[in-house]
């Protein structure tokens, strides 16, 4: 079961890499968050901890429902160009993603202390998600893609925290959720302003400040 969910996480992350339009990127992010939610639910079920059930619930409400819906509504409101603006086309991005998958695996194998080789597989997926998140932030031009990249990286960290260190302490988890939620709203607010002042959300064209 866990293997299937992990597979789902990987597939949805690849979908994010090949997305060309804002809506499909948001959809892929929703799939990714949903897979994470399932993974957390299973851990909660196995360990029978109330904390983990609450965390899974929050994950579902914030990352599967609230944030994607907020971003969709927001896209409609600013009527920005649907195009994400790729610096690197999808085929090449996919090649990069494959490279990152291998890199994440090698890194996780070296880092994770365990006799059992497959113990590194979930951390590897987590590192991969972080790498892809940062990749999206750098190689996509619109401000929206940067937000999603940040969220994807954060999803990866969530997966990492829940596997390697047995989860963060409960209140830290809650605080981080809250923080992520607030930061998405604030970033949305700034995109709104950028769109109003510049009439586009192409971050690549923001180059008034130099030197």
């Amino acid at each position, binding site marked *: 079961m866990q293997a299937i969910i992990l597979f789902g996480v990987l597939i949805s992350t690849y979908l994010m890499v090949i997305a060309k339009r804002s809506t499909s990127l948001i959809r892929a992010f929703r799939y990714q968050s949903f897979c994470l939610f399932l993974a957390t639910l299973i851990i909660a079920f196995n360990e029978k901890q109330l904390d983990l059930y609450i965390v899974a619930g929050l994950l579902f409400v914030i990352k599967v429902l609230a944030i994607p819906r907020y971003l969709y509504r927001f896209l409609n409101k600013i009527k920005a160009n649907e195009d994400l603006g790729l610096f690197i086309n999808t085929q090449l991005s996919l090649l990069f993603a494959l490279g990152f998958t291998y890199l994440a695996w090698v890194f996780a194998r*070296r*880092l994770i*202390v365990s006799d059992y080789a497959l113990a590194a597989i979930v951390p590897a997926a987590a590192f991969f998600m*972080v790498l892809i*998140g*940062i990749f999206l*932030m750098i190689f996509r031009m619109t*401000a929206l893609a*940067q937000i999603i990249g*940040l969220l994807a*990286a*954060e999803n990866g*960290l969530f997966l*990492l*925290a829940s596997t*390697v*260190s*047995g989860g*963060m*302490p409960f*209140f*830290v988890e809650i*605080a*981080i959720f809250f*923080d992520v939620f*607030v*930061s998405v709203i*604030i*970033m949305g607010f*700034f995109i709104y*302003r*950028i769109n109003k*002042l*510049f009439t586009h959300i192409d*971050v690549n064209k*923001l180059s*008034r*400040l130099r*030197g």
Partner: protein
Amino acid sequence: MEILFILGAPLILAILAFVMKNKKAAGIINAISYFAVLSCALLLLKRCVLSECRVSFFGFIYLDALSAFFIFTASVVTFAAALYSIGYVNKDVKEGVISGRRAGIYYSLFNLFCFSMFLVPALNNLGMLWVAIEMTTLISAFLVGFYNTKKSVEAAWKYIIICSVGIILALLGTILFSYAFAVSGVAKSLNWTDIAQVAHILDKNILKIAFIFILVGYGTKAGLAPMHTWLPDAHSQAVSPISALLSGVLLKMALYAILRFGFIIIKGVGFEYFGNLMLLLGVISLVISSGFVLVQKDLKRLLAYSSIEHVGIISIGFGLGAPLGFIGALLHIFNHAVTKSLMFFTAADAISVYKKHNINAIRGVMKALPFAGVMMLLGVFALTGFPPFSIFISEILIIIAAFLNGSYFVAGLLLICLGIVFGAFIYHFGKMLFGNLPKGIIPAGEQLSAKFAYLVLLFPILALGIVLVFKQKDLIWIAQKLFQG
């Protein structure tokens, strides 16, 4: 118990500023309250240095001499910024740059920003530390983009995005630290006190990798090159009292976070690893920023690059190690905070008279603003490390530490870069301070609150610079006290 007041006052003030109709009165109440916060911070510092001080609300808050020192530094700068804000905001409202309602929002955000910065050094849990630092970014982004112009919104966006990437890496580092702790099989905890206690038995490899992430992550926030790119934009576009807070306090809070993890690394892996990394980033920051200072055309960007330079010097100080380099770096944190705030305030005064950031457009500040001009001149000498100002003491301590350590290369580089920056500052500010007033510039009156703020900042600069020359022994004693923390 002082800490409750220090953390509570900004929160109450934030609500008060939002509700109050008379914004000038709100500013004055703000300044008075921050004076009370400053006194509390001083009491806290005294208690923590002289005796053990570990306040604990369910292990949530932890205070030792180091955190008290950072809170004290923050409180001095926030008090000065609160004083300076009165005149500054008043003027903006009078000239119609911002509405009365926006002034209220400014004061609310100012207080929330201060709250988040006071919170950072008081926390014990490393996860909460991360949350608090992210909070400082989110709140200050509004203050960077406060004027809602194309430039300021662009700066705010870059600031929030670059710092968020940095902070994601810092969270990764934090998780790896907790992994190292979990593998050791002691207990499940993210408290600094718990992890630091058993640092010597943690897995060295994981600690090493984790610290790299921490250093890059929080280093982004601290303005260490090459992750500094957000800094000149944000500092130059922010509201001026906030520029001072960003440069004086925010960067130092990120350094505080690096130090906290650094202690674990020093205990677990050894000083060499920590020291070399800090030296490396410090030297890169120093070299890059001294080049940019030389060719700068924008007054506030000039000061921002000088902040990167000073963060580099501080990082070199920590890299050289105890006790001389360490005490030099800590002193430098305080000295740079007060001196750079003084410079940002005087620069803001000059900019409000000439209406331009461009260095070439600013001439004859001495004639236009006699009081601020003199302060700016003193500030230039203080910032570039002239005796009898306090930065001289901390810089000389770091240079001595470098020579004693045998790091002649670092010492030489430090001296060369300080020379370059000194030359650049004298050149730029010489042109701005002296010379004839451009046509159409009328010498305007200076704000009383600003004058107070200058004097508040000048006092520690001069006092420390003179007193510390005769008090080296106490200094070293305090250094050891802080280092034990």
